[in-house]
């Protein structure tokens, strides 16, 4: 699971969960695959990213250098930041781990890089 995906994942589908975001990220195993850096893509995606989740992801992965806040106007031209985001969002793969609902602590396992977000019938 790429951390870009993680940025969109939520547990709000669980019954009685208001927001369910951002999910807690517990990484057991990760790998890095270098991909071509496409600044345009990052620039396009950045407005829809949740920076809090990015921070959580960066912290959990160990990537440093991410500001606490982001200024979209300035950051779009910040190539270094874009590269960091590219690395964080697209190159780091969470192979094994878990996602935890912040409200219910419901654990969504990540196995083989695939988060299992399925809910039981009683959770819907």
């Amino acid at each position, binding site marked *: 699971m790429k951390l870009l995906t993680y940025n*969109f*994942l939520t547990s709000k*589908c669980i019954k009685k969960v*208001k927001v369910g975001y951002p999910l807690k990220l517990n990484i057991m195993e990760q790998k890095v695959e270098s991909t071509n850096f496409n600044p345009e893509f990052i620039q396009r995606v950045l407005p829809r990213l949740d920076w809090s989740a990015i921070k959580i992801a960066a912290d959990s992965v160990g990537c440093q250098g991410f500001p606490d806040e*982001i200024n979209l106007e300035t950051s779009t031209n910040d190539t270094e930041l874009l590269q960091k985001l590219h690395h964080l969002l697209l190159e780091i793969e969470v192979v094994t781990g878990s996602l935890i609902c912040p409200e219910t602590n419901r654990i969504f396992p990540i196995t083989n890089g695939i*988060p299992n977000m399925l809910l039981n019938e009683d959770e819907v």
Partner: protein
Amino acid sequence: MFSKHEHRLLTKQLAVAAGINSNYETVSIESSLVSSASGIGNRDKDKDTKDNNNNTALSNNEANGRSAALERAYVHDVYENCEEPVGGIRPKVAQFLSSLEAGSLVCDVGCGNGRYLTAGCNPLIHSIGVDRCCRLTKVARNSGAEVAICDNLELPFRDESFDAVLSLAVIHHFATTERRVSAIRELARVLRIGGRLVITVWALEQKSRRFESQDVLIPWQSPKSKNMITTSDDEDDDDFLPPYHAYTYTEDSIHSNSSRSQGDGDSSSLSSSSPSDTCYSFVRRALQKLAGGGKKSPWFLDSWNSKDTKNDSSLDYEDAKDLPIELRRLEDFDDIPEPLSSSAGLKSRSLGSILNPPPKQIVRSRSSVPSLGAEMKQSSQALHESTAHSSITSTVLSAANNTTASICQVSSSSTPSRRPKLIKQKQSITDDPEFPFDENSSYKHLVHNDMRAQLLRKQSSLNEELMAESRIREKERIRKKIQKQMSLNETFLCRSLFTKRLQVIREGFTTKLKTSTGSLERVTKSGLVKIMQNISKSASSNTGNYPTESSTTISRNCENKTNKNGPISRKLSSNNSYERSCSTVTSHGDEVEKMRRESGSDSSKDSSLQSDTSIESEDSFASVIYIPNKKSDTLSNKMPTVPTSPLTMIMPCPTPIHSPAPVTNHRQFSAACESTRFTFDAPTKIDKIEKSQQLYVNSNKKIIDQECIGKKQSTVMLQSTKNGMQTKINTIITPPTPTALNATATSTMMKKASPPMSRITRQTIKDLPPIPKFKKNSGFPIVRRITSSHSNIIVPKLMSLEIFNPETDDLDSDLDSSDGDEDEDEEDPSSPDSIDSVINALQSTNSPTEPLLNNTESAGTKQQNVVASDQFISNNSKSVAPLVEAAAEVANKLENTVEMIIREQEQEITIMPNTSSTNTDDIDTSNNIIINENDINLNVKLTNQQHHQLSSNNNHRITTNISNNNNNNNNPNSDNSSDNIGNCREHLVDFAEKLSAQLLKELDNEAANKNSFDEDDNEDHLNYGIDPYVRKINGDIKNLSILRDELRERRLLLANLSSKTSHEMEQQQFCNTPPTTIQELEEDDSPPLSAKIQSHLSQNSNLISNLGTPQSSVKKQQQKINDFILEENEENEEDESSRADEDSSSRSRISFSLSYNACNNNCNNTHDTALLLQEDSFEENDNSSSLGLQQMKQNLLKNIKYPGNKLNDSNNNSNTNSCDSWANSNTASLDSPSVSVGGSATHHVYHHVFREGELDALINKHVNNLHIVSSYYERASWCVVCEKVQVWTI
């Protein structure tokens, strides 16, 4: 539009960006909160709307659970276990992806193997694929795609996250419109404003395939077996196998088709699912398929050896594997919680016909026709205008809750709507004029008056006391309204109205009973004491009158034959006793039949009265309500009536023929049933008051029965009503009836010569309406509770039995008619019109039959049984198709009611021995209808005092209880009908393979049933005591026991078929040989029937499959069996090798040969070894099919050695083959349904194929924030491109 939305998006982004300058993080969080909150708000809104209608919510939940289970079994599991072929990419989708601007986020919901994620159409987009199938996500993951596992209904993404969402070949896997809509809404949720959503669904209109129904199970051809020809949702269009359509148009299908309207998403989906049809109708299809392809080499054989034949498998579209199975009635999509309430209300109305199963069921019944359902709907709507109820029952329930006199309201509300629809009912009326029976029947009823009179008195007393002034007032109001309508009255119209109103009232009562049990209890308690007192008094007085009446009635019966009352009286009686009886009766012109019918009606009256008392004891409003009506009517037809003294009330029921009281009674009865009033008023003063009175009494009794049924239904139905499926109860009830009918038929046979009966049966069969009528019957819950207070419990029990089996009613009626029983005649009419009439008939039969049985010898009963079986077979041949459909329908309903039945059966089982020793009166556990039936059967047989008969009765009970069915029941009746059993076995095998695990379980149940049948056969021939079997219970090894039982059954059947002369010898050896393991097997196999039944009942799905199977394929199976037997006989003489070849070629034959061989082995004293081998094989099979096969081979070798005869060897071989097949089937059953064990199971994937414009309509109607940009047809799929728009709600 797009630019507009784009603009909005940009503005929004700008706003966000502006906020970010100061505090980006907080702003973003707030936005997310807002979005999430909005989403939650919608959700809560939906939930609230559901909660508003608790009933509907419950039904929705059930329907949802059912559909979810179906999706799980036929979509999720299939994808988990089946290889999905690598298909191509839809060019337009690829174009769509490539057209996305750089940086777009795409979510492919239902990505499958991720072909669109890794296609590389657009390198500047980021695609996230999600799928519910873990296996496919791994595949996609391995291909480098970004995937996640989730459900389309709960996408784990933030709102408005993606620029584009793909839903390719996903939506058509949702079983209900509601789920489809919710899935699309979820897709729209994660789509940003201005984002595009691409939805593709299978099209109903395809070049390569034709679908008769929109809900189909498509066989999944594994790529290996199909040589790369595979079925995939997306790409299979060209590759996909053309579906084979075994579907035959029934009334249902026609009806659904007629109601179809293209362009209306709701209607289309709904139309596809006819109310009566259930999601399990595919079973029926499978049965039909099997029946149609009877002479073809059984497809399942291939599946058994699938491993070997994978490469050999040729694409035979005729092959059952390839047949798409059409599903019916998957959804009751009354309303999707949608912000636009107006649209939803409109939808619900339009959908109402489809949505409301009970009304349609009613419509299906001949007499009531469509008008009933509509009226029901209207009434319900009137009560709840704003709320759209999924099922009428739910509406009625709510109405009952709201008002104590909900019944009156319902009737009143329904009255205005009735008038226009009354015209429709005239069709049913046409049947009526022909009915002369009622008159005659009334006299016969008098014969049984003794019992009835007491009951009537009780009821009358109870009624008066229970009656409340307020109720009376309401009734008067209703009467006035009714009188107005009376002007309209044609007796026919009155009938239809009556039936409708009765149904409404029943529902209302059931609901009231449920809701306001407390008040009822109070009333009942106080009333019961009074009633008891009154009863004691009235009984003494009435009893004095009855004997005289009975004598007079007997003498009059002859007179009645000669003197046929005017059609009016007949009509009246028919009106009272529901149109069903009339329609059926009309066909029969014979006076004898009439007489029989009359007797049946009388008995039914008695039973109804009894049931009424029982109801009262149960504190049911229905009985009370009816009673007041009666009182009022009795005083004066049109005059407002005050609750009369109990004595007067009592009088009507037992009415002395000549006394004026009967007239009043008629009026009372009519009053009891509001609709009946009309009819009664017109004919009330008929020259032949006696006859009319009797008729009225009959009708009243019937009504009471209905009420009782309603109450029972309320108890049983409460659960079912949640689903809105009243039919379920009916279905449950139906299975047992055949046995009861058989018993009654036998008894009637004793009474009257069978030959005329056979003729009648044929006529009746022809006359009998197809299955849909039964569905209507199902609408009336017939479960009756028998109270200990009833001395004559037997009759009511029988009645309950008849009610239960709407489907079986046909068969039963056929049988009965063949027997020439009066009951049969009544049953026939009742079957179309209402279960009540059927019940009455059963009661009537039982009451007369018992004494007859006592008088008659067992030999006579045996002969009768044989005759009945023969007749039954003929009947089956004629009415196989409708029966199959009915069975499928019943199966659906049965699921819900299975639990209830199981309980009842348990009680019955426990009670049975008692009843057998004592009269059925002892059985106080009359709550269970099945029990009643069983009791009746037991009583009859007990009177005969023949062990085999008792055992057969037990078996019948079990089979009926299990609802496995008519065939089974019939089989036991006919000792010689081993063919039927073989057919059942074949059906079992077929089902196991097709239907997979659930079906396989059902097969086990069937096997148990078969075992019971075998036992019956054995008992019949050998007078073998079944008692030890019943006593021994093996709960641990059900499968093994079942298999063993099947083997035994086969043996028995084969023995019977092969050497009828040596039946007794074989059976004796089989059962009695101490050294043999057979006894052990039998013991193991024959745990107490009750235990088996319970276990079987526990498996609802199994029951369903069983029901569907036996009925459909009875004839064909019989034919096949005969052929097989002949062949086998010839083969026995032939060499082993040749025979083995033949076995391999025709595996179906092998299955027969197994039983046949087993029988042979038994004859040769080698049966011991064979049994051991079979047991071993079965055990091994349970453990592992492959191991079982090897062991089977070894066993075969051993067997060959043991028997000196080559025939035995051949037999052993065949046995081993069959065992292997069974083992495969067993393993398949044990395994998950979708998973193919040993390649035997064929995976079916559920599809809801969309009509043209259906998807568009669905989106337009239910998903407000999606705007369809383009809609096109591509590769057998409907493709819709939507754009999410901002919906501003002020």
